[in-house]
């Protein structure tokens, strides 16, 4: 089926067309560009919630419960659930749906699983593309479940409006260790598995950590939840709503989206520039002679760089 027909059907609400479009934007960069140019005008309406946190924290279970609460209010909700791809085989087992079984048939819900396919940062390279398709398809909320956070999986800040950081009791010193760079991205902290011993302590530790961050304009709330028993979910949804209000009132909503768009454009430009550089260094093995000169101290690396850039500027491509 032509992609124009798929777009037409997707806009009408056909899930099959939506699923097929996601496959294309996830796999075929050239076709993806055509589709994304076409649907741009329909995007930007969804509120995007990122759910992140350590492996096994209950992100999928929490997502399931949040979706249920949101659809009860009459919303359409989509989920993108990301799991790691094996670096050895390129394969993956995407198991987040196990926790969302009874959402499969809901007409107002769409769930898509994705493998990271070698991309670091907690998302896959084309998660953003899939997000745009779902946004155009008219989902009011899109929840993105990232792979479990380690130390640097913070790509979610580039695409989410509200980030929920899921913590659990018993992380102990881990809270200290994931602090740097990761704690900062949480707009809301959810202490899941609060039915287990130590939840209060975890909440206190997070609060202490937040006390140390002086430059906050808004202090992220800490909410205790028991996703498995559907407890505290309404509080969490309220905090999401509060965050949306805060973003809109303070002008941060637009600011955040503008920043992200700028990042996206810069990334696209970088990608093209990299292609140009690679085609010049690979195709003609241009640098072979220069490398020998550097070895022999006839030139230094900076001279070679400047010469190369000089040549690039002169040649059309």
């Amino acid at each position, binding site marked *: 089926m032509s992609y124009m027909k798929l777009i037409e059907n997707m806009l009408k609400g056909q899930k099959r067309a939506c*699923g097929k479009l996601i496959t294309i934007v996830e796999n075929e960069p050239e076709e993806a560009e055509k589709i994304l140019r076409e649907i741009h005008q329909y995007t930007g309406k969804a509120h995007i919630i990122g759910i992140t946190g350590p492996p096994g924290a209950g992100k999928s279970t929490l997502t399931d419960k949040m979706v249920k609460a949101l659809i009860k209010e009459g919303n359409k909700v989509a989920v993108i659930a990301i799991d790691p791809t094996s670096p050895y085989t390129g394969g993956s087992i995407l198991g987040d749906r196990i926790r969302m079984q009874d959402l499969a048939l809901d007409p107002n819900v*769409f*769930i898509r699983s994705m493998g990271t396919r070698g991309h670091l940062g907690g998302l896959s390279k084309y998660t953003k593309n899939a997000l745009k398709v779902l946004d155009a398809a008219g989902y009011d909320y899109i929840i993105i479940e990232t792979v479990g956070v380690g130390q640097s999986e913070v790509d979610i800040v580039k695409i989410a409006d509200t980030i929920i950081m899921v913590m659990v009791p018993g992380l102990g010193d881990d809270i200290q260790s994931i602090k740097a760079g990761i704690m900062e991205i949480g707009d809301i902290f959810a202490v899941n598995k609060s039915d287990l011993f130590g939840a209060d302590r975890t909440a206190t530790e997070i609060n202490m950590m937040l006390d140390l961050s002086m430059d906050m304009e808004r202090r992220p709330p800490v909410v205790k939840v028991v996703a498995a028993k559907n407890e505290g979910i309404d509080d969490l949804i309220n905090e999401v709503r509060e965050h949306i209000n805060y973003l809109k009132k303070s002008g941060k909503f637009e600011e955040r989206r503008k920043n992200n768009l700028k990042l996206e454009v810069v990334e696209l430009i970088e990608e093209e520039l990299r292609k140009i550089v690679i085609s010049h260094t690979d195709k003609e093995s241009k640098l072979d002679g220069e490398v020998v000169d550097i070895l022999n101290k006839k030139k230094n690396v900076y001279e070679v760089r400047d010469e190369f850039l000089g040549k690039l500027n002169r040649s059309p491509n």
Partner: protein
Amino acid sequence: MNRPIRVLVAKPGLDGHDRGAKVIARALRDAGMEVIYTGLRQTPEQIVATAIQEDVDVIGLSLLSGAHNYLFPRVAELLKEEGVDDVLLIGGGVIPNEDIPGLKEAGISEIFTPGTPTTEMIEYIKNNLKR
């Protein structure tokens, strides 16, 4: 299109035997496929809805309870109703040989019973994709 093969491994009905499904999921992952595993006790309706949202290339049903003669054809029927004609539908588990021709008649392309090496299943999938 050179993209990973996406497979939904699903357990229809009330059958609690999930070792086989998990073995298959891992084998397909190790063969470089993206395997969506949805857990136990799926209705045929859920399986087909999931396959559509995930846009999978293959649905692999696993059943050891004996209810395959109803549940497998039901999945095939729903796929047809939804106009899904580009998904390879296969099955496995404890299935008597005499039931296999009927299942194939009903639209299940192949059935893999205990003892079949997973390499054979992987080859079959690679050679019979409908995309």
